[in-house]
C-alpha cells in the first residue's frame, strides 16, 4: 500500500497544530489543555483518514505505560463514544516469553500490560501474543481469564521464518474472522492462494546467492529493511534467495576488497550519511567494476560510484564529494544548487517522489520497460554537471535524468553484467507482488554470476 504524509503524525505535529490554532485565536482565549484540546485534535486527525474507506487500521507507537503515548490512548479511549462501540476495536500486542530455566511460558508480563491499558480505560478486544511457540489451550484460557477476554480472543503470534508468513499464521488462528465478527463487517472469505504460493517461493527457493551490503552498520541493520526486502522480492521470479553478507566498509579499508568480497555474487552500496567508510565503499565499487561483479549503488552508493569512476577510469585522481572534502580540486559530487542557501536541517532536503526520464536502450530502460518513471529521493548532494563530459567520454552512461535534464538520477556501465546506480531509493517502491525492476535485474545478474562463474 502506498501511504502519504496524512498516514502518519506525531505528538509534535498535534501540538504544533493546536498551538497555531491558539495563536490564531480559534479557542477564543480559553485555557488550552491536553484534554480536551489535544485529544480532540488527535481524534480529528484520526477521523480525517476515514474518508472513502471501510476501515482505518491505526498503530499507536511506543509501549503502553509510557508517558508519551498517554494523550493518544486517552483520545482512542474516547472514540467509541463518538463513533459507536461496535465500530471500534482494540488489539493489543504483548509478549509471552518462554523461560528456559523454568521450562515455562510466562503470562505475567501480558497480565500487567493489559492491566495498564484497563487503568487508562481501554479493555482490549483481542490479544496478539508474541511467542516462539504455539500457546496451548490452557494457557490461552489463563490469559483470557486474567485479561477479561474469551479464549478465542487470545491469538498466538508465533515467530515465523519470513514476515510474509504472518498473515497466514493469523488466518489459521482465526484472527480475520474474529475481527469481521466483532466489527460486524460485511466481507467475504479471503482468497489466500496467491499469497500462500508467494510465501512458499520465498521460503523454499531453488537458488541462493550471496549479496554483500557495504556500509556502516553496527546496530543499524533494521534501518535497511526496505532494501533487504526489495532483494527478497527481486529474487521471487527467479526463485533466488539473497543471503545478505553485511560488510563494514572500514573492514574493506583494513583488509582490502579482494579479501572482504571474495565469493560474493553481487555488491550493493546503499545510502548513508557522512564521510566515514567512504574509501572502503569506493574500493568495493572498484572491485565490482573491474571484476565484473553485479553492482547496485543507491543514493550515497551512486555518489561513491561516480567518485570511483572519476578516479580510476577517468583519471581524476583527487575526485571526491564536496560533502567530505569541502574545497577539493575535483568535486564530482557537489551540493545541489538549490541547497546552497539552506541552513536549517529539519525538512530541507530534496525529499519525495520526482519524475525521471530514462535513456532509450539503456539497461535501466530495459529493466523498467518504459521511459518515464517516478522514484523517491532523500538527498542534498548530487552529480556535478561540470564533470558530465569528462566522465561520459570515458564510458559512463547517464541513463536517467530529471525531465529538465539538470539532475543525474541513474548511472550505468554498458560493458558490465550489471552496474547500475541511482541517486533515488528504488527500494521504497518494491512490493512482494510487484518487485522493483532494478532489484529484479540485479538479482538475475547475481544468479547469472553464480552459475556462470
Amino acid at each position, binding site marked *: 500500500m502506498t*501511504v502519504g504524509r496524512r*498516514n502518519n*503524525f*506525531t*505528538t*509534535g*505535529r498535534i*501540538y*504544533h497544530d493546536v498551538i497555531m490554532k491558539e495563536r490564531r485565536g480559534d479557542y477564543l482565549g480559553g485555557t488550552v489543555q491536553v484534554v480536551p484540546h489535544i485529544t480532540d485534535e488527535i481524534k480529528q486527525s484520526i477521523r480525517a*483518514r*476515514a474518508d472513502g*474507506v*471501510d*476501515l*482505518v*487500521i*491505526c*498503530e*499507536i*507507537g*511506543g509501549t503502553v505505560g509510557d508517558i508519551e*503515548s498517554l494523550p*493518544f490512548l486517552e483520545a*482512542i479511549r474516547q*472514540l467509541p463514544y463518538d463513533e459507536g462501540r461496535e*465500530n471500534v*476495536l482494540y*488489539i*493489543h*500486542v*504483548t509478549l509471552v516469553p518462554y523461560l528456559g530455566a523454568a521450562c515455562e511460558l510466562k503470562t505475567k*508480563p*501480558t497480565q500487567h*500490560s493489559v492491566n495498564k*491499558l484497563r487503568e487508562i480505560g481501554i479493555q482490549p478486544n483481542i490479544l496478539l501474543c508474541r511467542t516462539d511457540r504455539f500457546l496451548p489451550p490452557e494457557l490461552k484460557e489463563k490469559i483470557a481469564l486474567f485479561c477479561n477476554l474469551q479464549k478465542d480472543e487470545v491469538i498466538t503470534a508465533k515467530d515465523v521464518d519470513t514476515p510474509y508468513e504472518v*498473515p497466514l499464521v*493469523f488466518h489459521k488462528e482465526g484472527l480475520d474472522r474474529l*475481527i469481521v465478527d466483532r*466489527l460486524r*463487517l460485511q*466481507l467475504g472469505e479471503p*482468497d489466500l492462494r496467491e*499469497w500462500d504460493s508467494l510465501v512458499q517461493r520465498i521460503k523454499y527457493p531453488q537458488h541462493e546467492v550471496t549479496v554483500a551490503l557495504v556500509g556502516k552498520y553496527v546496530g*543499524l541493520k*533494521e*534501518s535497511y529493511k*526496505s532494501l533487504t526486502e526489495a532483494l527478497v522480492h527481486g529474487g521471487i521470479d527467479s526463485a533466488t534467495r539473497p543471503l545478505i553478507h553485511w560488510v563494514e566498509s572500514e573492514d574493506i579499508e583494513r583488509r582490502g576488497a579482494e579479501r572482504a568480497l571474495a565469493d560474493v555474487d553481487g555488491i550493493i552500496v546503499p545510502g548513508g550519511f557522512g564521510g566515514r567508510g567512504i574509501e572502503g565503499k569506493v574500493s568495493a565499487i572498484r572491485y565490482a567494476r573491474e571484476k565484473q561483479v553485479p553492482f547496485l549503488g543507491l543514493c550515497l552508493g551512486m555518489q561513491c560510484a561516480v567518485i570511483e569512476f572519476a578516479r580510476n577510469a577517468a583519471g581524476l585522481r583527487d575526485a571526491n564529494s564536496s560533502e567530505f572534502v569541502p574545497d577539493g580540486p575535483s568535486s564530482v559530487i557537489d551540493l545541489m544548487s538549490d*541547497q546552497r*542557501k*539552506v541552513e536549517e536541517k*529539519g*525538512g*530541507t*532536503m530534496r*525529499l*519525495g517522489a*520526482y519524475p525521471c526520464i530514462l535513456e532509450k536502450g539503456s539497461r535501466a530502460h530495459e529493466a523498467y520497460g518504459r521511459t518515464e518513471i517516478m522514484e*523517491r529521493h532523500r538527498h542534498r548532494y548530487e552529480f556535478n554537471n561540470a564533470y558530465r563530459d569528462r566522465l561520459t567520454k570515458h564510458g559512463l552512461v547517464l541513463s536517467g535524468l530529471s525531465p529538465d535534464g*539538470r539532475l543525474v538520477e541513474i548511472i550505468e556501465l554498458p560493458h558490465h553484467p550489471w552496474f547500475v546506480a541511482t541517486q533515488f531509493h528504488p527500494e*521504497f517502491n518494491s512490493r512482494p507482488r510487484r518487485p522493483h525492476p532494478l532489484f529484479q535485474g540485479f538479482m538475475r545478474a547475481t544468479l547469472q554470476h553464480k552459475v556462470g562463474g
Partner: protein
Amino acid sequence: MAKFIFVTGGVVSSLGKGLASASIGNLLESRGARLTFLKIDPYINVDPGTMNPYQHGEVYVRRPTWTSATTSGSRP
C-alpha cells in the same frame, strides 16, 4: 461510515506492531475491505524525518512527503 482498529503494544518495544497491523490489513484486504493505515508516533519531532534510525529503524521516504516553508520554494 468507517470503522477503526487500534493496535497498541505492551511489555517491550519491537514486538512487531507494524507487521501485525500490515498483516491484518493484508487479510482484510483479501476479503475485499477498502482500508488505510495510520501510524502515530508519540514523539515531539514534528515530522519523523529527523528521528534517529538507531532507535526507530529506517527513515522511510514516501511519495508526497512533509515539506516546510524552507523547501517549498526550492524544488527543481
